[in-house]
């Protein structure tokens, strides 16, 4: 997949995935790799930035296997940011799809 396309959407995908349920860094990386060919070096700094910006919060929880893990959950600011990003994304996809179909250029 084109790198430039991926660049803008990783943050949106991370927030969306964590909205479904709390995830550890490992889980975020493993899930996102399943659908997007992204480097771990790309995702982890985004997780830290979103946490520092107050869009995610980190809690330690007991794990079923092994030592306690840190889990990311969406804050209310994170939820608002996600809604905004989703709106922007849907609008963007609609407009680009329109161009690709040649709707305004036929």
């Amino acid at each position, binding site marked *: 997949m084109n790198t430039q396309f991926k660049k803008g959407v990783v943050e949106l995908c991370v927030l969306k995935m964590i909205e479904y349920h709390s995830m*550890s860094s490992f889980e975020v990386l493993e899930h996102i790799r399943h659908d997007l060919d992204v*480097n771990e070096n790309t995702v*982890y*700094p985004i997780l*830290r930035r979103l946490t520092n910006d107050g869009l995610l919060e980190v809690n330690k929880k007991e*794990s079923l296997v092994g*030592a306690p893990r840190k889990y990311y959950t969406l804050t209310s600011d994170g939820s608002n940011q996600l809604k905004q990003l989703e709106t922007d994304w849907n609008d963007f996809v609609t407009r680009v799809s329109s161009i690709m179909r040649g709707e305004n250029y036929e």
Partner: protein
Amino acid sequence: MNKQVFLEELKDELINRSVEEKSILDILEDYQMMIDEALDNGLDEEEYIQRLGSPSRIAGSLRYEKRKERVKDSKIIALSPFLAVAAYFVLGFYYQLWHPGWLVFLIIPIAGVLFGTDQIKERVVGLTPFVSVILYMLLGTYASLWHPAWLIFFIIPLAGTLFLKDGNKKILGLIAYGVIPLIYLYLNSLGVNSWYGLIFLITLGLGIYTGEIQLHVGIAGDSELSKQYKYRFIVIVISLLVIYFLFNLIFALWHPTWVIFLLFPMYVMYTVAHEIDPEEDIPFVAYTPFIATILFVLVGHFFDFYHLSWMFFLLIPVVAILSDRD
């Protein structure tokens, strides 16, 4: 690479990039948990670590997490060269204190040490070389106490000793670098014959015993340096020391004859360069800091030209520009 090595290298990389200490601990904990969770999920440790990327690359991607520099402190450090030049000219033109007024240039590294760190230990240990040079030059210039004022340089290892965690090493260090010099000073004041200088063999012995003094001759990064050159360098250093002490025991020109020691690094550079590649010469600009210092001190002292001889330091950038092949 295993988890332990990976985390150690990552820590070093983050420290080198001035990341905040709290962030470093957080990041290391996160990566440790990621690797542990990968192992719990049946992934291979080394394969997963390889996927995470090199510590250098990871630290580079986290570069925005730098330690917040105190703006005011950075400004003081940046201003210090200009303040030093201004102070030097005031001392020179108004008070004719070109020498030892040039000592004000030491406020540049002193500012760097004072405002570049919060750690008391780093400040104390970092400042002692400059404090000792200033005190030595002042005592020598105004009280002609070049000897025994050179003892002041013992505050450098003494400062390091104060912060040692090992109690025994601390006591032995205080004896070696504090008590022994004081005894020497006392014996010197009694005017007894100069054999009491042998008391410093105790300092040397204690230093070697505690590991604070290690005798090693070699060139950084070159383990193949021939035995011939190593012994030659030892002979040259010892010869310079003997010449310096013998000459000054007779003529008492401790300053400025100390510049003779600057010939040694120049000789080493020339010799090692030819050892590594006989076809290639070290650029002349590499020698200019030493040449400039020697000329500055000798012309300043013997012709009382410190107010002009500082200009020899302009040799460094001028030669660099003129010899630049680009």
